[in-house]
């Protein structure tokens, strides 16, 4: 075994080795998927070392579910030096972006690929956290505070499965973790900085189509548990409203079902099985609506709801 193949974690690779691996195609396990990242530049290796250190490496010959090639933008003249491009398996330019936004576009490209291809799961656009009682699913529209809530809960005793994807498989509805960087947006960045001083945040990326983004790196423990599925127990539809008093109310199961189907990336594609899984999930969880403005207060209420659901 040579020095490049021995390490099990990305953080164990020296930058120069990591760069060589990236040039050939670096394969990492990201939840249930193998993702292959490919790129030439040393700065890319440095980014990976800083932001993805806790991902396990897999053999270079393993089949990759997603392949992302990060390279200079081939279609522009002067901007060739200040912009980059990502291609998927077909080699065509999938997205272009300023160098500073590389991390955001790697994450978004991975999201796109998983949402559009992983139809062996019923996938929901929903955050999902777990504790010893089971999984808490958080479906929400953009802007409802889902990622911020996941970021806070992750540092307060909950395990991060994903802030974006709930991946359900089989009749037993096991939720498969897909732990990733959490993209905090705009004011949420300062909120988490203030409430969670130990949070590891990447430098903010201003001017994206979602405003300023800073990626929060999940602590190692969350990635080490990326193979442990969780059983759905609680479903909360969160809504952040500035200045709002905490409000919790049970949600009707019919509404819960509608939310599941509307927040699914592939409900229609899954056909009758998708219907049966959505019904089973609706029956399995205790559904609530939560409006909040204070994160610690919301987290305390969520802890209590999970205790109650598990009793």
């Amino acid at each position: 075994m040579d020095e490049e193949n021995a390490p099990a974690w990305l953080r164990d690779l020296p930058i120069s080795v990591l760069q060589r691996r990236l040039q050939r195609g670096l394969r990492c396990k990201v939840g249930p998927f193998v993702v292959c990242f490919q790129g030439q530049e040393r700065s890319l290796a440095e980014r990976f070392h800083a932001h993805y250190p806790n991902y396990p490496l897999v053999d270079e010959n393993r089949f990759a579910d997603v392949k992302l090639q990060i390279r200079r933008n081939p279609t522009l003249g002067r901007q060739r030096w200040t912009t980059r491009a990502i291609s998927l398996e077909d080699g065509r330019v999938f997205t272009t972006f300023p160098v500073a936004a590389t991390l955001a576009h790697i994450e978004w490209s991975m999201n796109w690929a998983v949402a559009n291809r992983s139809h062996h799961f019923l996938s929901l656009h929903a955050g999902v956290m777990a504790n010893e009682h089971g999984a808490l699913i958080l479906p929400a529209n953009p802007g409802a505070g889902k990622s911020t809530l996941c970021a806070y809960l992750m540092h307060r005793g909950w395990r991060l499965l994903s802030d974006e994807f709930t991946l359900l498989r089989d009749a037993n509805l096991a939720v498969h973790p897909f732990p990733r960087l959490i993209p905090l947006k705009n004011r949420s960045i300062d909120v988490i900085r203030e409430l969670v001083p130990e949070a590891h945040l990447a430098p903010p990326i201003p001017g994206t189509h979602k405003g300023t983004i800073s990626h929060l790196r999940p602590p190692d423990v969350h990635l080490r548990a990326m193979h442990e599925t969780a059983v759905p127990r609680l479903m909360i539809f969160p809504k952040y409203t500035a200045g709002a008093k905490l409000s919790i109310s049970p949600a009707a199961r019919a509404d819960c079902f509608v939310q599941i189907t509307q927040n699914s990336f592939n409900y229609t594609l899954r056909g009758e099985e998708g219907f049966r899984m959505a019904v089973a999930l609706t029956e399995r969880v205790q559904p609530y609506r939560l409006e909040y403005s204070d994160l610690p207060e919301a987290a305390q209420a969520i802890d209590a709801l999970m205790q109650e659901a598990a009793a």
Partner: protein
Amino acid sequence: MKRWQVNSLAPLVLHTWGAVSFVYHRESGQTHFINASCRQILELIAEQSLTTIQVHERLLEHHGIDEDSDLQEAVITVIRLLEGLGVVVACGG
């Protein structure tokens, strides 16, 4: 007179929460959100093919009420809607 039947060889895939039901239509892959009256009509037609008048008569009997022209209108409307969605089809003259 037209008789109506469910447009599927397999049994209905339906789930109910309270007064609200969801029916998965295999042929189109669509999920429909239906109320209690619609569900009752659909379940009658799923049991056996019926004319609109027969559906109306069964509902009168089920609810223990006399002739009701509003109900008859409602039955016609619901069946037309279900036909439009492809959930029921006419099967005889």
